[in-house]
């Protein structure tokens, strides 16, 4: 016979105490609380902050890094890292722009070639996915550390972007193309719409699909995932491809926003994206932890911070110092959380 009494006793002993409950609530929602406090403080500091125009501006500015961060979150959750995303922005921007020049361009890249918008759109996404495929292949097949693998592509892909245009920008893009970066539906800018749609899609992908479950499982304990019959290499490949795809899309948005494809676009974005994920609670030290909602809030925190410092005329140098402090602070918070957990 089983012994219900005994097991109940065992369970009774591990019921969490009150203090732990608080800690666990904070660890779940802490970042949202911090964000709320920031918004309140920002609106007190500067009356301009809460205006609709300013708020939309904040979100639009963080939308590109936000897009990249969505994918980077998954990669970090799987126990990896992606340093190549900023370079991917540059490459996909020039490739897409070269296929999206208007007929009256003064410096056509492919003279006489005029393609429907779908072609540059797909090209941007495909370029990103291709680099992701290389990243994933290096990580899953050769088993070199993700940091090294993507450091390699970070350098090489930027080089490829430069090579492609010979270092020159590609301008005179079609109106359709520019609409993606500059247009608006109603009063909502298109980049924000793209971010919202992709955030929802990514949330479902990570939280509700098999693919997502396996990404978390691999990050949480790769060996356990493998002995459960999961082809861990394949899902690692896929998460890098997905992250690459999002970075490619981000490249399209940035170039459309400025109306020109430049090989130097996106420099440093990979670090901003990692920062957004980490501030949002994605754990760099322990895999298997991180959410889309957290990452979006993380990106918003960076955005609000930049914005309020701008509004208050804080110098760009100070802004960088403060941002650095916030990133480290977020990771310290993350560590405390895990120490408190057990």
């Amino acid at each position, binding site marked *: *016979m*089983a*012994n*219900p*009494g*005994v*097991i*109940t*006793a*065992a*369970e*009774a*002993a*591990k019921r*969490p*105490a009150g203090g732990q409950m608080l800690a666990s609530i904070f660890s779940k929602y802490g970042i949202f609380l911090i964000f709320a406090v920031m918004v309140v403080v920002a609106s007190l500091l500067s009356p301009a902050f809460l205006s609709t125009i300013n708020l939309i501006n904040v979100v639009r500015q963080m939308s590109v890094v936000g897009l990249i961060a969505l994918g980077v979150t998954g990669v970090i959750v799987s126990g990896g890292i992606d340093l190549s995303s900023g370079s991917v922005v540059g490459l996909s921007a020039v490739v897409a722009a070269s296929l999206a020049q208007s007929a009256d361009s003064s410096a056509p890249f492919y003279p006489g070639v005029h393609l429907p918008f779908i072609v540059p759109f797909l090209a941007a996404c495909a370029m990103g996915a291709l680099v992701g495929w290389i990243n994933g292949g290096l990580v899953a097949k050769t088993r070199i550390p993700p940091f090294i693998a993507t450091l390699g592509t970070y350098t090489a892909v930027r080089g490829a972007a430069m090579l492609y245009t010979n270092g020159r920008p590609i301008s005179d893009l079609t109106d359709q193309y520019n609409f993606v970066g500059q247009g608006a539906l109603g009063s909502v800018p298109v980049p924000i719409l793209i971010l919202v749609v992709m955030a929802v899609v990514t949330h*479902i992908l990570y939280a*509700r*699909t*098999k693919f*997502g*479950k396996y990404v*978390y*499982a691999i990050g*949480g*304990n790769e*060996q*356990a*995932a*493998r*002995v*459960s*019959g*999961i*082809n861990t290499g394949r899902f690692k490949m896929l998460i890098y491809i997905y992250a690459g795809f999002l970075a490619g899309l981000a490249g399209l948005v940035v170039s459309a926003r400025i109306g020109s494809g430049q090989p130097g676009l996106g420099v440093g974005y990979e670090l901003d994206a990692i920062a957004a994920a980490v501030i949002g609670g994605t754990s760099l030290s*322990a895999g*298997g*932890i991180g959410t889309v909602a957290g990452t979006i809030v993380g990106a918003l925190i960076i955005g609000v911070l930049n914005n309020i410092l701008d509004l208050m005329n804080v110098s760009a140098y100070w802004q960088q110092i403060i941002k650095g402090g916030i990133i480290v602070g977020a990771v310290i918070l993350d560590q405390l959380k895990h120490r408190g*957990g*057990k």
Partner: protein
Amino acid sequence: MENDYLLVMEGISKQFPGVRALNNVELRVRRGTVHALMGENGAGKSTLMKCLIGIYTPDSGTITFKGEKLNITSTHYALSKGISMIHQELSPIPEMTVAENIYLGREPMTPYGLVDMRKMNRMATELLDRLHIKIRPTAKMRDLSIANMQLSEIAKAVSYNSDLIIMDEPTSAITEAEVAVLFDIIKSLTAQGCAVIYITHKMDEVFKITDEVTVFRDGQYVATEATANLTRDMLIEQMVGRTLTQMFHKEKAEMGSVFLDVENLSGKGFRNVSFQVKRGEILGLAGLMGAGRTELMDGVFGVTASYGGAVRINGKPVKVKSPADAIRNGMALLTEDRKLTGLYLNATVRENMFIANINRYLVGPFLRFSKIEKDCEKMRGLMRVKTPSLMQIIKNLSGGNQQKVLIARWLLTEPDLLILDEPTRGIDVGAKSEIYRLMTEFVLSGKAIIMISSELPEVLGMSDRILVMHEGDKVGELSRAEATQEKILQMATGMKIPTSLAA
């Protein structure tokens, strides 16, 4: 008769760098039986099982399962053919729920291609209820006790509805109560025609639950016998190649002054506990899983916070706020979970052994490797650690040998009080008796030991005094003379369920 065999493994060999883990071994398992696989630490039991479940590929040999020759190349394939396994080293994913862990790799889906969490939780509830395992399927793995983690691993292995379930030391982290649950599960499995390969170092379990026994020694096949034809001593002799005269080597040491005096201490998982340990004494700490024994020692050692009461060492009041305080005061703690809190998995055997003792080997800023080498080599010999060299990475050692290295680590620090939390978990009989001998020598030299153990024979065999806990409270103490298995169990279960464990 021949086609009664569900599984036939023949001529299996497996070589690791520097180690011949398996040398032309065989294993034949009949349908509907429980087949024990026995052997010392490092004999190759887990390695053979990993070949069967597709984690390793054998260098040579054949595997015939249900009459079909299989070339098992992945775990996925083995699972699909009807073989599942409970792994020796717990392998849950801490951030996921119990249900997610159980159905990892075969999640139920909604018609829209999403994972059907509702259905998954329902399936897990049904499974756990059917197996009489009282765990919430939505609990996160990291919040479970080790025993409950192990029970959920057991549930997971059963949930594949396999024809063959491999259990690699399934009871090393659980107590009698959960063992009873497991044995019920095994009985109902075999009644349905499922076979079980059962690896354990606990002799009583072999005679209680298994039908046949296969013994390995040093990667070699020794013999297969019906359990009914074996005695305990015969089995031990087959395993270690010699007879063991005395399992518990116990000499009465002279009792000295009180070393540790704990009065009315409370903390997470224990309340108002008072006890003393004298020099020269082994204090046993008995109780069921969740009784608060580990928590109490964590509190005493400063791993977790304790409050109220007083702690005195050598009669002087001390505040132990961290493990560093405890170590400074002459204590050492061998923790319960070697993977989580013990081993530096990617470091060598040598580093793992001397790391807690590093100050003793310093000459200025430099380490004296000659002395380290000598001490570690001595410990390796004493504990019979099976490793090709001290420079082997410790994660390549068998589980029992990893445990031996940890015990060696703490013995090397020469503490005044050694706290051992389940010291012989996963250790073979030969090495066990070796550890008991070392424990006796340790207290004979005027030092003290507190031993938490869920193995009653060990508690009874080694302790001078036994403190019994129940749900965070100290129930009482028993002297060596008056202690019996029955008394301990009665005290450990309290009055609410007096008979459930006595069977």
